[in-house]
């Protein structure tokens, strides 16, 4: 027994309350943002695409709290609608990716052998290119747009999520209750759906919520490059790109959409970090 072993190991870990606070903080922030996004048509004071000639680059005022852009459009309303598009693309990309990765990782982890080798090798190919470059390549082929951006982001995350599912499946499969079910003569499908999958999903959900933060940044980056959501549909990244030329005269056109992205990314990061500390203290998902 050494000095380090004497100190209670629990003291070094963060208290469960800290992780709960993080999760709740992230969830509340995310809830508010999602609510704003869903209720944008009701909440937005103006139409996000209506051009008002005498409001070009108007400074923030009571009428336009976030000011107005180079075409005289209300920035607050555009941020609300932009949030809608950004969250939709980010979330759907993660959902698509998870939906494909879970069965792949499950099969690879449960059956092992050639199934595992094939799945792992094919997914490894995706990792040959840096993430953003892969997304851009995808868009180069299929053409720019929100749906293609969501698909491209989904493909990038496929190997990460599948790998997490695979390793947590491996852990669960070794448990006695799975061996017991097998000994009782349960079929593979039954074991997978009622014993393995429900217990192996935790780390994947944690990882998915962490990846949502990155998905949001990626969507904004692609739209900023003109490869994601196309104008005139407002998107947060697109607004930043449009406002770049008028930065000196009207910084509000750049500041508010950027803050919205930061808040959304932060909410996912907090939620993911909190969930990770709560459900995955050993860090399988990191």
């Amino acid at each position, binding site marked *: 027994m050494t*000095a380090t072993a*004497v100190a209670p190991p629990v003291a070094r870990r963060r208290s469960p309350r800290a992780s709960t606070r993080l999760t709740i903080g992230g969830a509340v922030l995310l809830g508010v943002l999602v609510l704003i996004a869903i209720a944008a048509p009701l909440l937005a004071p103006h139409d996000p695409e209506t051009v008002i000639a005498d409001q070009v680059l108007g400074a923030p005022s009571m009428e336009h709290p976030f000011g107005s852009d180079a075409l005289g459009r209300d920035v607050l309303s555009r941020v609300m609608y932009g949030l809608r598009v950004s969250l939709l693309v980010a979330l759907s990309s993660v959902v698509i990716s998870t939906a494909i990765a879970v069965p792949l990782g499950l099969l690879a982890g449960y059956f092992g052998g050639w199934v595992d080798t094939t799945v792992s090798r094919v997914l490894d190919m995706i990792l040959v290119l840096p993430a953003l470059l892969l997304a851009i390549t995808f868009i180069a082929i299929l053409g720019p747009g929100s749906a293609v951006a969501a698909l491209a982001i989904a493909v990038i995350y496929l190997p990460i999520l599948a790998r997490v599912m695979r390793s947590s499946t491996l852990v669960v499969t070794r448990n006695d209750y799975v061996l017991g079910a097998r000994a009782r003569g349960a079929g593979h499908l039954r074991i997978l759906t009622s014993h393995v999958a429900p217990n192996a999903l935790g780390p994947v959900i944690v990882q998915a919520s962490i990846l949502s933060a990155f998905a949001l940044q990626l969507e904004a980056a692609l739209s900023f490059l003109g490869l994601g959501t196309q104008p005139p549909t407002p998107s947060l990244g697109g607004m930043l790109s449009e406002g770049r030329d008028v930065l000196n005269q009207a910084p509000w056109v750049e500041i508010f959409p950027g803050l919205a992205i930061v808040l959304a990314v932060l909410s996912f990061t907090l939620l993911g970090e909190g969930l990770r500390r709560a459900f995955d203290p050993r860090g399988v998902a990191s």
Partner: protein
Amino acid sequence: MTALLSLSEVEVRFGGEDTANAVDRVDLDVHRGEIFGIVGESGCGKSTLANAIMGLLPDSAHVSGSARLDDREILGIGEKELRALRGDELSMVFQDASASLDPTWSVGDQIAETIRAHRTISGRKAKSRAIALMEEVGIPDAAGRYGDAPHRLSGGMRQRIVIAAALANQPKLLLADEPTTALDVTIQAQVLQLIRRLRDDHGTTVVLITHDLGVVAETCDRVGVMYAGQLVEVAATADLFAAPRHPYTRALLAASPSVRTESRRLATIPGQVPGPAEQVPGCRFQPRCPRRVEQCSVTPARVPLGLTSAACWNPEPLPAAVAEGLR
């Protein structure tokens, strides 16, 4: 004989006032040039005591009392003084040698590093001194193995390297915390032999911490028995085995396969060691003790009892044969 290390009322506590002491009022003199064994079950506080002497406990530990090395106080002194002491006059060897060496440094450099931490000496001289030390602890082809990474050596060889590094500056006192537990039995014997030989050659005083009474019997001149943080009995090794006076010592000897004394069957001690949150007043062994008396809720001092000294209000009787010899 004079005491090289003198402990008085050493206490260590982790956590608040309501937690039990991990080391409880330990008084002990370790004589110059002897190998002193501290034996006890895991969790009895023997490693904590060694780490307290080295000043290696985490900041969360509350340490009190006094420890004098060569009449110099070493408990509660500043980090800088402590650093000058460690690896020079005072050294320590830990249980798992594989884990004690930095895997990215060559074994030779890790010995030379200790020398250069305390002596102003050229790199070349430190290296040749390190090679000499490697030869002394019995590493074959020492010069050739100087540059090897630790994982290229066997467990026994790694423990020899650790010992060489600990002895590099000829310390007065070596604390060896379960130095052989992680090794095979044959290698274990070789390493113990090495420790004995180094003591004989250099006069280094050794405190050997172990849970293995066989190791004590084979290596130590005197031995102290610890239970739940208290040092319950101290004696010359042969005397302790022949005439244990503390009921715990006796139970421990009866439960040990390597030095079974009386009965054929291995005995077990009923009950459990108290946890850190359990406050047992007085002698901590009393809830499990077959010889408990009323006074036991007051902590007994360790008093000389014939051949040994034990902290017990109602000590075991002296075996007849031993009593005969004493007369």
